[in-house]
């Protein structure tokens, strides 16, 4: 049913990806804009302030926003070019429907909505409510995220709603809830400034959060020591004081050995451990045998370097530990996070100025989106969907009977697995491109092809949406009012700069119309985004992620407000835990045992090389937006296989020679980039591309048992040089690979 209606090549011809460039002289009206709109970048969790230049309802350029305190005008290449997602030739200008043998043809909103609603009803009547699933995403604002959560539970009445944050920082969220009882970075980035030691673990900051680089250098200018933990010599590691080139999949062994070293050398804050934490002894017991020698054996890092890092961390008076996907995308992602938190708690350096800890949330609204909306086990305010009191409170806010509130559903990858098994028959997706972003994409494609009905809301026809029956033309970030919550926990205002072009509609109006047609108009009537936010405030009230005191006016007047903010006279909370009252049941911060375990797949004779995946600076996530922006594609036209010269020599691989990379799940051909900046036992491929250029043809669907995050960061592969030098990157057209 959901195989492509025509060839992918034909779909690409009609809907792209095509590359958008600015005309040489710039877009008309850039020098005399009608409006200069202060808003935020649509990409990563830094949510940099930016001004969009608007002429005749089109975004025609940008101007740095110097006053926004986090980035003070700074931007990365994606931010500089983000305006080119506007005025794009691939933009969907109205709803389209699948026509067998022809591709996609325009349809009316009425017909598209009718078809969608009748198919939701048909599937649910035939197979049960939960046979219709929803996959959402956290490039959506808080308002849209909240709306998707309510829409799934109240209008569609399915428990199977999850989101692409499942591929983002859920391991960190789960770890933070275990340790602190709350899921947010504990500090703002201004606490980096006078940190004496900074650990950056599995976070390619200079490529994925470039504007955070400045804050790390601010500390280094004051003498801070920088420790970077990464299998590759990433740009930030080049000048670091200590680079721990960890073997992929062995992070927890490193943190365990560092914890043991701190204990053995009494570099501990006993007062903090005794009075404000629990679980120290049992956590220490888990790593009691983790000597430096053992850690060197497991992690491949020289013991002297581990010792040096532990000494620097142990002796510091102030510090900041940051981590991201590099340690979270593992079958033991939660353990890795807990291992980091143990190092922070052992030294008591949290809840004080310049003593910080936090995950760097990846997506634009990865923080806010996961608190209020579309996570399968969560209700607004970061409430638990299985907690009777939480269910009761939110049911009250939504005006439904608590018995009608669905329970905990499947996580994102489990939804795909359930589709593959034939248990889930229908899917609505928004802001999610599973065919590119999920692991084992051949398997994901098989699943998508089994759907009886698939409706997608998007502004471009992403690779997964090519399989859809109906595509509803939605809106870009700059086409609706709203808020997001940055990686610091700062709630900020997203502005509507323009209205959707042609017959495209705002995402919000599409969801509200679907809810109405599903018979729930009374619960889905809002005049403005602010009205949705005001309901979200009430829904979050009393939860750990309490937004009750945050208003649009306060955000605008203060360039953001940090949650928790329970009342309108509360100043917000830039730095957590100053009162040392943690949100765990016993009020203490929890050490958790984080013993080392093997990754889900280890190398063997058939698959002898470690494969890890990641990102490049000019692309964002699955590339739906950035593979359509000309200069961002030119900057990194195709995925390259990074390989160490010694490993390349072993296989006789030449620079830019095509190499077939195989795993137990699939294979792909990539040009070799022979560089000394990676471990000898590991190869790296960035994942932003589609089809035969997708790194996720190779990655495993192994999930962390707690967070259900897939293990993108380590698997076993086989290399085969093809004795053919690749054509120049610019000719690769990898941005539109099928």
């Amino acid at each position, binding site marked *: 049913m959901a195989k492509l209606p025509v060839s992918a090549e034909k779909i690409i011809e009609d809907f792209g990806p095509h590359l958008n*460039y*600015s*005309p*040489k*002289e*710039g877009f008309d009206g*850039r*020098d005399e804009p009608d409006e200069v709109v202060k808003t935020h970048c649509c990409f990563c969790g830094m949510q940099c302030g930016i001004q969009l230049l608007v002429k005749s309802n089109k975004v025609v*350029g*940008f101007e*740095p926003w*110097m006053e926004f305190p986090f*980035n003070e*005008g*700074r*931007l*990365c*290449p994606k*931010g*500089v*070019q983000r305006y080119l997602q506007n005025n794009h030739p691939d933009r969907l200008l109205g709803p389209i429907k699948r026509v067998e043998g022809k591709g996609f043809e325009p349809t009316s909103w009425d017909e598209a909505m009718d078809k969608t609603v009748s198919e939701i009803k048909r599937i649910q009547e035939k197979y049960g409510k939960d046979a219709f699933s929803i996959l959402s995403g956290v490039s959506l604002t808080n308002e849209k995220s909240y709306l998707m959560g309510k829409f799934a539970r109240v209008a569609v009445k399915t428990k199977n709603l999850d989101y692409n944050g499942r591929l983002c920082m859920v391991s960190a969220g789960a770890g933070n809830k275990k340790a602190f009882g709350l899921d947010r970075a504990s500090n703002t980035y201004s606490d980096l400034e006078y940190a004496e030691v900074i650990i950056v673990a599995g976070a390619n900051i*200079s*490529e994925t959060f*470039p*504007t*955070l*680089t*400045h804050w790390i*250098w*601010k500390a280094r*200018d*004051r*003498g801070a020591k920088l420790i970077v933990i990464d299998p590759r*010599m*990433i*740009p*930030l590691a*080049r*000048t670091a004081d200590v680079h721990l080139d960890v073997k992929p999949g062995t992070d927890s062994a490193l943190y365990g050995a560092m914890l043991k070293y701190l204990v053995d050398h009494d570099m501990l804050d006993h007062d903090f451990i005794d009075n404000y934490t629990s679980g120290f002894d049992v956590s220490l017991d888990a790593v009691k045998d983790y000597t430096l020698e053992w850690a060197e054996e497991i992690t491949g890092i020289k013991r002297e370097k581990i010792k040096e890092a532990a000494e620097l961390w142990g002796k510091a008076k102030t510090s900041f530990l940051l981590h991201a996907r590099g340690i979270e995308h593992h079958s033991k992602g939660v353990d890795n996070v807990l291992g980091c938190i143990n190092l922070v708690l052992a030294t008591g350096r949290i809840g004080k100025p310049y003593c910080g800890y936090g995950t760097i949330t990846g997506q634009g609204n990865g923080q806010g989106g996961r608190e209020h909306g579309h996570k399968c086990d969560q209700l607004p305010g970061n409430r638990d969907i299985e907690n009777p009191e939480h269910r009761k409170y939110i049911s009250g806010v939504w005006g439904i009977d608590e018995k009608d509130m669905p329970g905990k559903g499947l996580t994102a990858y489990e939804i795909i697995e359930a589709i593959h098994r034939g248990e889930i028959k229908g899917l609505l997706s928004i802001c999610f491109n599973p065919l590119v972003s999920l692991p084992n994409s051949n398997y994901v494609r098989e699943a998508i092809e089994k759907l009886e009905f698939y409706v997608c809301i998007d502004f471009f026809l992403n690779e997964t949406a090519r399989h859809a029956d109906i595509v509803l033309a939605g809106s870009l970030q700059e086409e609706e009012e709203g808020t997001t919550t940055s990686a610091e926990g700062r709630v900020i205002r997203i502005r509507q700069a323009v209205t959707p072009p042609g017959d495209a509609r705002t995402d919000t109006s599409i969801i509200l119309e679907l809810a109405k047609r599903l018979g729930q108009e009374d619960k889905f009537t809002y005049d403005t985004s602010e009205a949705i936010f005001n309901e979200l405030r009430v829904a979050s009230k009393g939860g750990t992620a309490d937004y009750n005191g945050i208003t649009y006016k306060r955000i605008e007047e203060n360039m953001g407000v940090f949650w928790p903010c329970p009342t309108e006279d509360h100043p917000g909370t830039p730095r957590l835990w100053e009162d040392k009252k943690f949100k765990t049941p016993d009020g203490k911060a929890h050490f958790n045992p984080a013993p080392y375990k093997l990754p889900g797949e280890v190398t063997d004779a058939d698959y002898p090389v470690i494969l890890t995946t990641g990102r490049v*600076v*000019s692309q964002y996530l699955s590339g739906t937006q950035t593979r359509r922006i000309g*200069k961002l594609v030119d*900057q990194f036209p195709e995925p390259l296989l990074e390989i160490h*010269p010694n490993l390349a020599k072993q296989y006789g691989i030449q*620079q830019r020679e095509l190499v077939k990379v195989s795993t137990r799940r699939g294979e792909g051909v990539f040009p070799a*980039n*022979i*560089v*000394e*900046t990676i471990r000898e036992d590991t190869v790296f491929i960035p994942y932003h591309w589609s089809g035969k250029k997708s790194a996720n043809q190779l990655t495993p669907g192994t999930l962390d048992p707690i967070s259900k995050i897939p293990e993108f960061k380590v698997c076993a592969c086989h290399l085969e040089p093809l004795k053919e030098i690749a054509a120049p990157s610019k000719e690769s057209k990898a941005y539109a690979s099928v």
Partner: protein
Amino acid sequence: MNYTSFNTNEEFFVDMQRCIGCKACELACAECETNGQDSMIHVNYVDRASTVQTTVQVCMHCDDPVCASVCPADAISKDEFGIVHTANTERCIGCSNCVIACPFGVPKKIEEYDLMMKCTMCYDRTSVGKKPMCATVCPSGALFYGTKAEIEEMRPNSSAVNTFVFGKEIVNTKVNIMMPKGSTELIIY
């Protein structure tokens, strides 16, 4: 043109060790309408096979610009604020003398226009009191535009150097390179 808004106490500072090779500066520079989507700042890998180190090169705006001295058409001029302007389009004959002569490798001949083009330190912005676009967007602080007092306060472990020694030739520039504390000149071997 109104020159009165040029902040004469602000200078340009380049710190190569901070460059992360992201090219935000190149993409932002190219946005300027006078550049026709070409960048006047250039980021390059030093040797990608062995390191991720990149260099970033803007026009150094020499006190005694050799590009102007060798120009047979008098197309390049330096103004009262020390800005060495790009080739006057009416005068430039595309001979590439400046391209060959510049010790920093800054001017580029754009074949499409048969014209030399180079950085003017965002004259359209700096002349109205704004900072150059590249230094505004640079996410790492590899590029900074501001006063000497500001950079000294922010970066106590570095010294700003604007004297470059090429053999027997000494070149002084308006643009500074950040060097280890106490450095006074950069000797190019």
